Each structure stands twice: as structure tokens, then as C-alpha cells.
């Protein structure tokens, strides 16, 4: 079967695109493989950007081993359009790239709260390097966004010696982790000197003195540096007119297929979960989706469907958390041993400052 597939194009060179390209090879595809990525860099580890990279001056924490898939890599090149009928990807300069099979892996970008250049976000390597440079002078910082990313950024800014205010819609992390863990992290954050301001919807605006965050009650939070971490938006604009990205996500089946011969994987893909079709914009999710999708493109219906249980980790305020299962989770956990807890009805297990093999953590969750 694989002999009939001559050309595969992978659009997006994040971990989903990279893993898809590797897995296509591992599944026996030996034809022409092209990877298109609009960042001028080789694929790197995005989770490292808000952790080791912000703290470590030398800054190689994000580097991944070089790709071995032998694809033609068009880096710094953006895909602009897709023609499903004619099986063509249109590049930024108008070049048309034909394919027999396609992998859509253009990920997501930071959701911005304003169009102002003073509003920093953290999604790509260039963002992280720019932020690290700014932190060197220990400016006062306001972080807008109380999710895991906003909290990691706030933690790194504190570690860099900055005075930090975090503006959060509701209690930080509560929507992501649930009340128990949000409490644990909130306490660690305050102990380390984080000022938390809870609000409804906040705005970012500019006045004579610079940019500032305006809270729902009209109060204003100002600082020398403003970083927002207000969620992500899937990069689906180049799919306009194809019907693939209704609602701003690419819906796929359990094998990662959006259409016959067209797969999608990573942060932009909504796949079947016990809670309905969902995006799970996490590292391990992107890797697992990409493997399944590549196998499905090469092997067809014989390929196995996705069997997925989320794995999430974060490092902030001196705490290291590893979690398996679908978060957030309600109620109090059962403590199995120091640093290991479980919410059995929800199928969630968490290790806090506790090194544990992930397979063991998965067993604890079951």
C-alpha cells in the first residue's frame, strides 16, 4: 500500500509535525516527504520556553536532537492556502506543493488581549529570548492570565528578581487544575512573593505612561513589563474555504483523520475523548496524536486508533507537578504516599515534588 503514496506534505514544524514526519518513516513511507514550517528554527521544545529557558542564561534547554526523517524542510516558509480537490498546498510566495497525503500540524498561537506591541506573549522561541532579555534588568512585571503558562511566567519573573503582579480571571489555576491543586499552588506563589489580583474580564490599554491592565471594576495595574498568557488560538486561517476548520479547530476521528488522506495532529486538532471532541493542547498529546495519524495515513484502517490519557506537568514556585487524567478535578484527593495523590472517581493521579515513573502514575489513576 505504501508504495502508492509518493508524496506527503507535513505543514507545521512543531513537535506534532516532527513526530508525524518521524512516524511516517517508521511506518514504512519512503517517498518524498516535505515539511513546511513558518518559524526559521529547527523544531524545539516549547514547554522548555517558560521553564528552564527563562531562567538559564546559556539557554539550550529547548533544543531537541536533530531530525532524522530526511524530509525536505522548508523553514521560514508559511502555508497560505489548501486546495483539497487538487491536493495542493499553496505557500506564501504562491508556490503550489502537490501531495498524496497531508498532515496538518500548524499548532496554535498566543491569544492577545490587545494589538499593542508592548504586550508580550510567550509562544515561540523568539518570544522567549526577547522576554529573557527584558528580565535581565529586573523590571516590575504584570502577568495577565492565571493559567499554567501565566503562573510559570510569573514564577520565572520572580526568580529573576522582579516584582510581579498576576492578574487572573478568578483564582489562578482553578479552571485548569481544580480547587485543591489551585490552593496548593496559590499558597506557594504567595509565599514566594507573588501578588495576585482576581478580576473578571481584564483589558490591556495604553496611556501616556505605557501599557496597563484595566480590571473589570476599572482599577488599573501598571508595571514596566506586561506579559499576557490568555490562552491560545489554533492556526487554521490557511485552511479557509476547505471546510476543515469549522469553529476554529480541525475535527478528526480516532485515527487523526479529518478527511481520507488528510490528517491533523497537535494543538489545533479536536479528537474524540470521553468528554466529546476536544483539543488537548499538551506536549504528550501532540506526540501521541501525530504517531497515530501518521500510521493511519500509511496503513489505512488497519492502523490502531488513539488510546490517550492526558499527561500534564508544570514547574513553578518550587513545585513540580505531574498529572495524568483529565483536569480540572473537583474535591479532595486521597493521599497514597507522600507526594502522591489520587481522585479515583475522576481517574486522576498527581505527583507533587515526587519523582515517579509515568506508568506508575497511570496505574495509580486507574
Amino acid at each position, binding site marked *: 500500500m505504501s508504495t502508492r503514496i509518493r508524496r506527503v506534505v507535513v505543514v507545521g514544524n512543531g513537535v506534532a509535525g516532527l513526530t508525524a514526519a518521524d512516524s511516517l518513516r517508521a511506518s514504512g513511507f519512503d517517498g518524498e516527504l516535505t515539511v513546511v514550517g513558518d518559524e526559521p528554527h529547527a523544531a524545539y521544545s516549547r514547554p522548555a520556553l517558560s521553564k*528552564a529557558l527563562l531562567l538559564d542564561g546559556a539557554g539550550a*534547554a529547548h533544543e531537541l*536532537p536533530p531530525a532524522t526523517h530526511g524530509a525536505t524542510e522548508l523553514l521560514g516558509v508559511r502555508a497560505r492556502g489548501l486546495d483539497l480537490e487538487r491536493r495542493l498546498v499553496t505557500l506564501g510566495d504562491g508556490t503550489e506543493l502537490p501531495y498524496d497525503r497531508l498532515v496538518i500540524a500548524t499548532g496554535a498561537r498566543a491569544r492577545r488581549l490587545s494589538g499593542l506591541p508592548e504586550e508580550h506573549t510567550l509562544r515561540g522561541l523568539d518570544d522567549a529570548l526577547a522576554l529573557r532579555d527584558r528580565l535581565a534588568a529586573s523590571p516590575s512585571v504584570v502577568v495577565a492570565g492565571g493559567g499554567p503558562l501565566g503562573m510559570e511566567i510569573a514564577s520565572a519573573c520572580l526568580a529573576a528578581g522582579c516584582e510581579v503582579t498576576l492578574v487572573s480571571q478568578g483564582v489562578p489555576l482553578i479552571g485548569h487544575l481544580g480547587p485543591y491543586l489551585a490552593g496548593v499552588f496559590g499558597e506557594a506563589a504567595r509565599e514566594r512573593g507573588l501578588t495576585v489580583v482576581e478580576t473578571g474580564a481584564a483589558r490591556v490599554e495604553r496611556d501616556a505612561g505605557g501599557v496597563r491592565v484595566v480590571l473589570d471594576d476599572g482599577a488599573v495595574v501598571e508595571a514596566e513589563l506586561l506579559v499576557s498568557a490568555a490562552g491560545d488560538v489554533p492556526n487554521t486561517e490557511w485552511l479557509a474555504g476547505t471546510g476543515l476548520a469549522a469553529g476554529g479547530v480541525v475535527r478528526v476521528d480516532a485515527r487523526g483523520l479529518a478527511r481520507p488522506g488528510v490528517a491533523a495532529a497537535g494543538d489545533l486538532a479536536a479528537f474524540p475523548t470521553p468528554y466529546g471532541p476536544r483539543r488537548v493542547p499538551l506536549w504528550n498529546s501532540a*506526540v501521541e496524536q501525530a504517531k497515530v495519524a501518521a500510521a493511519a495515513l500509511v496503513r489505512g484502517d488497519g492502523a490502531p486508533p488513539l488510546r490517550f490519557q492526558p499527561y500534564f506537568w508544570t514547574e513553578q514556585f518550587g513545585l513540580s507537578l*505531574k498529572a495524568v487524567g483529565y483536569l480540572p478535578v473537583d474535591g479532595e484527593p486521597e493521599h497514597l504516599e507522600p507526594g502522591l495523590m489520587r481522585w479515583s472517581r475522576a481517574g486522576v493521579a498527581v505527583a507533587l515534588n515526587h*519523582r515517579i*515513573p509515568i*506508568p506508575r502514575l497511570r496505574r495509580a489513576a486507574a
Partner: protein
Amino acid sequence: MKIVLDRPRCEGHGLCEEAAPELMHLDDDGELVLDREEIGDAEVPLASAAVRVCPVAALRLA
């Protein structure tokens, strides 16, 4: 080929173990143990999968 672990970088996520349990595991203290360092050609895809999934690039093939 050989699997090389950069131990100070390893954060014990164990995603590598999930990808290639035949080649490595985390011990009870959460330290990664390479059960096989020298690998044959047949195991290269498995080892590559483990190397790739590590979010801190603590593993490489040499």
C-alpha cells in the same frame, strides 16, 4: 548505536520509558536507568521515539 543520557538534564518525566519500556525505566527514586545502552539497527526506531518524546532533550543517539 548507543543511547546517551545527559543525567543533569533529565527531569524524570519518564515519557521516554513510555515510548520504549524495553530500553529504559525510572527506578524507585525516579532516576532514569538505561537498561540497554548499545542497541542494534532493529531497535533504532524505538530508541528514536524515546529520544524524541523527551521534552528536555536529555537523551540522544550516538
